[in-house]
């Protein structure tokens, strides 16, 4: 399908840096986050969590807790209906263990009591008898013959013979003749790479307030990336119709994909239903690490062939991901994206998901792509070293471009990879001198981006100001960008527009804030809602002037007569039309509903300079530049923020972040002390270069920018470290003990 939404034009507001509407509230504490919502008569929830990686629940005795006068409700898995659709059943099973504990920290019993302290005391009175089972938390252990079966009956029907019952999903992509491709290569390198599970590390823990009335109507306030999917999931789990449950999203202190599922909301609703009172449930940091979804960990084998002049002749990858104790589809974007930056005549990826005794994974920024592309970009870098070729030139030689049949099937339209690579080549960073113990790494990155179901309503207030109502929680500055697009389209100043995020009853469905979709899809719907309002305003002006409505055009925030039969009338401003609207037909608004397509894939290139202390293995990131195609940067601050934020998270992933398990299968670092996200002083200023290759699928050319930026850092940093120490690193994180061990092994 040809996409022709984009029209070139001169912008007045797009591309400027307007103040965000939520800024002052956030720095003064006025903003309401998940845990800030309260209600009269509210109870406090607490969850008893299992201290085992894998165990049968023999019995649960809650009688002593229930005897406490402060305890108003107790909930176990037995309170929920079983036999929901697989996906929804997995969601609730991950929240609260049915008959088997599947990971350390798995919920077993939830309590609602009149105070937090009472709830905690009550937990101590609950007796659970466990039968501890052998566990598997690592991919290799879960894949091994004789591995404990994490959940019986979940083996995927596409999984080939030879894989055990923990293997739930399988996929394959690619085209061309691999053998012929490898035969043309002057050198083939095969390597195996590992990445640890990392957590999104959002600062706001999950929190909600659930209130179920005796009439079966419910309200839920929660911190989420999407109130609509929360409604859908919770309604199904609790067994109510969607219209009975209204969900309102709070301000959100970070999500990065981790808040695209539920971990506490159905539990709080069930407690509220049983107690007949509102229930507040919040997670501690420890619970966030143990019982929400980090991303997958991975083992990836990569084999790539290259000619001595740098042409990649064939590429092959086999990905093994684990996403916890449940089936998981993250292998799909992993296998699809692994080679997506290259134009290849022979490419194949295969991937398997294996269950382990870990929490159910959740999306994390470009889910599945960073680890796959890390593996591929590491081998490409090594081949460049092998032939003494410039790694940027090799990328330029092999880059996907318009018309390339991508490694996962579709043929690319206008894409920005070549432009991004050329910008990197021309940037002073690429040729800056390096000192001793320093090295430079680069990597490309890719993400699909997404559009999806979107509803926007735009009201022209009588005083000439504009209210935009959208249904996607603002996790990256989307309210400001949406207000800017509305103002641009209507031709009014930015500060005349206020955008709010509505509850589930106030608008049609909106897909979750993910897939870098909001500025693209909600922006598109906003522009079209504005156009609908403009159409109505032109009709009103035509009515006032008593001319044909086709004879009115909209320009610079004014209705103007145009064409031979229009006559001469003073242009009417939006404010004037709004003021008169009660007398010309009533309130004016526009709305737009769409399942948006044409999101437009996005590419990025990262350059990283670093220094390794050869005596301690400590890595200092010295300089970092992100080059990324934004299609159109509506608000450059927020685009840069996404590029910098992705790089920062990727740096943490590459250097220090990891889920660490003990021999007992229990998580050892459920806190920010030992789960090491970078602190501010760990990072240099991350430079950004925004490319704007308009996306034909958006009226202003927007492409999502939120995810691509976390993809390249893993390989960029690994390549820089490998070049600095002269050893090819094959495992993340590259914490100092690993780097020092690699240096020593090379010395011996």
């Amino acid at each position, binding site marked *: 399908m040809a996409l022709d939404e984009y029209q070139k034009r001169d912008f007045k507001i797009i591309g400027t840096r307007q103040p965000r509407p939520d800024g002052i509230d956030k720095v003064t504490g006025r903003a309401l986050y998940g845990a800030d919502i309260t209600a009269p008569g509210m109870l406090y929830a607490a969850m008893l969590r299992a201290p085992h990686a894998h165990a049968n629940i023999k019995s649960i005795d809650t009688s002593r807790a229930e005897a406490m006068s402060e305890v108003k409700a107790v909930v176990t898995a037995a309170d929920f209906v079983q036999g929901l659709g697989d996906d929804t059943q997995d969601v609730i099973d991950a929240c609260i263990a049915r008959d088997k504990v599947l990971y350390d920290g798995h919920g077993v019993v939830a309590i609602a009591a009149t105070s937090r302290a009472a709830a*905690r005391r009550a937990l101590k009175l609950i007796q659970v008898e466990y039968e501890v089972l052998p566990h598997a938390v690592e991919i290799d252990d879960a894949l091994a013959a004789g591995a404990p079966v994490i959940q019986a009956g979940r083996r995927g029907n596409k999984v080939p013979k030879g894989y055990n019952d923990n293997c739930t999903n399988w996929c394959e992509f690619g085209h061309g003749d691999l053998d012929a491709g490898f035969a043309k290569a002057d050198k083939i390198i095969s390597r195996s790479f590992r990445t640890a599970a990392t957590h999104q590390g959002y600062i706001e823990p999950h929190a909600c307030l659930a209130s179920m009335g005796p009439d079966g109507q419910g309200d839920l306030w929660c911190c989420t990336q999407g109130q609509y999917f929360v409604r859908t999931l919770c309604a199904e789990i609790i067994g109510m119709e969607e219209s009975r449950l209204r969900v309102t999203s709070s301000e959100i202190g970070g999500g990065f994909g981790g808040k695209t599922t539920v971990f506490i909301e159905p539990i709080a609703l069930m407690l509220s239903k049983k107690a007949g009172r509102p229930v507040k449930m919040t997670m501690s940091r*420890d619970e966030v690490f143990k019982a929400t979804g980090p991303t997958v960990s991975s083992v990836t084998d990569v084999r790539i062939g290259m000619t001595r002049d740098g042409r990649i002749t064939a590429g092959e990858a086999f990905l093994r991901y684990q996403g916890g104790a449940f089936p998981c589809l993250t292998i799909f974007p992993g296998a699809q994206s692994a080679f997506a930056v290259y134009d290849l005549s022979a490419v194949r990826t295969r991937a398997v998901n294996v269950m382990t005794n870990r929490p159910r994974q959740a999306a994390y920024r470009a889910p599945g792509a960073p680890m796959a592309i890390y593996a591929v970009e590491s081998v490409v870098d090594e081949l460049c070293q092998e032939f003494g070729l410039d790694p940027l030139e090799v990328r330029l030689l092999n880059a996907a471009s318009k018309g390339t049949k991508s490694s996962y099937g579709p043929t690319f339209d206008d894409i920005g990879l070549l432009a991004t690579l050329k910008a990197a080549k021309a940037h002073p960073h690429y040729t800056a001198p390096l000192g001793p113990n320093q090295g430079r790494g680069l990597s490309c990155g890719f993400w699909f981006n997404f559009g999806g179901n979107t509803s926007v309503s735009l009201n022209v207030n009588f005083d000439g100001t504009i209210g935009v109502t959208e249904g996607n929680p603002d996790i990256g500055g989307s309210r400001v960008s949406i207000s800017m697009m509305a103002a641009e389209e209507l031709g009014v100043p930015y500060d005349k527009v206020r955008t709010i995020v509505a509850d589930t009853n106030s608008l049609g469905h909106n897909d979750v804030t993910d897939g870098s979709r909001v500025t693209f899809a909600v922006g598109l719907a906003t522009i079209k809602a504005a156009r609908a309002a403009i159409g109505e305003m032109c009709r009103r002006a035509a009515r006032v002037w008593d001319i044909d409505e086709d004879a009115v055009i909209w320009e610079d925030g004014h209705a103007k007569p145009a064409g031979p039969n229009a006559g001469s009338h003073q242009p009417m401003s939006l404010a004037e039309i709004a003021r008169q609207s009660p007398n010309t037909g009533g309130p004016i608004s526009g709305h737009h509903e769409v399942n948006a397509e044409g999101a437009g894939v996005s590419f990025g290139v990262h350059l990283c300079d670093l220094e390794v202390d050869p*005596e*301690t*293995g*400590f890595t200092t990131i010295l300089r970092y530049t992100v080059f990324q195609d934004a299609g159109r940067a509506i608000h450059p601050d927020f685009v840069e923020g996404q590029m910098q934020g992705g790089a920062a998270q990727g740096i943490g992933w590459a*250097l*220090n972040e990891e889920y*660490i398990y003990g021999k007992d299968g229990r998580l*050892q*670092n459920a806190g920010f*002390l*030992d789960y*090491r996200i*970078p*602190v501010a*002083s*760990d990072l240099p200023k991350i430079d950004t270069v925004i490319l704007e290759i308009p996306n034909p699928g958006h009226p202003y050319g927007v492409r999502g920018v939120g995810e691509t930026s976390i993809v390249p850092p893993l390989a960029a940093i690994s390549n820089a470290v490998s070049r600095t120490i002269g050893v090819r690193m094959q495992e993340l994180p590259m*914490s*100092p*003990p690993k780097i*020092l*061990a690699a240096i*020593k092994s090379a010395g011996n």
Partner: protein
Amino acid sequence: MQYAAPTTTEEAARLLASNPKAARVLAGGTDLLVQIRAGMIAPDLLVDIKKINGIRDITAEGGGYRIGAAVSGAELGEHAGVVAMWPGVVEAVELIGSTQVQGRCTMAGNLCNASPAADSVPALVAADAVARIVGPRGERNVAVLDIPRGVGKTSLEAGEFITSIYLPKRPDRASDAYLRFIPRTEMDIAVCSAGVSLTLDSKGIITEARVALGAVAPTVLLVSEAAKALIGHKPDDATLAALGKACSDACKPIDDKRGTIEFRRDVVAVLAGRAARIACQRAGGSL
């Protein structure tokens, strides 16, 4: 839970002795309150020592300095006299936490929390600092080295608490330094650490030295072999190699989520060498 904020050491000691099992001293609270919140401990009585007369003072005494037990890291770091005389101790204390934590944390709290990774402790041991302890049976002075007795254990007896820490006088051409290894640049816990205090003669030869290591054993280690490797030498490569070897040999690290045995053995030697160089430089020696 009860909270008391006595104004005299006698009253504080009496309160602590009245309920020796369930009472805890509260200084900055940056360990204690975290542990209470995490449910690790549930004391019945908190005795806040910050209101005790004089306990937040730094006083010159006998050519050295007596640091009150409730002096915060930030206050210590602003005391020109201590900074000039014991820069290694001050830099160790200033590594604790962040600006916010610095406003509350104390050396005595760091010491009595008895973590093997406590940052100020190796520097205090290298400095040969002495803690003054008050308890039901009066006052006694104990070398800082003798306070930690294991992970989370001290040699303080029931009802006892530290009222001050004494940093002794030091000769001319003497100084100290402290370095720790963390995987980040701040807000972290030492994987291993080294404090070195030394004195030089007029030619730059080390005449006295104390080397203390952190996070490589259940308690801080004072390594006399390491001091011997330094004494009689300039901090040249051979001397520092000998120092490093003595440190690696002396330490008894474990493998854990923060580092491996091998890594700690290697890196503690590197840190001791680098700290020795810095201390020499500060003492007026040339490299």
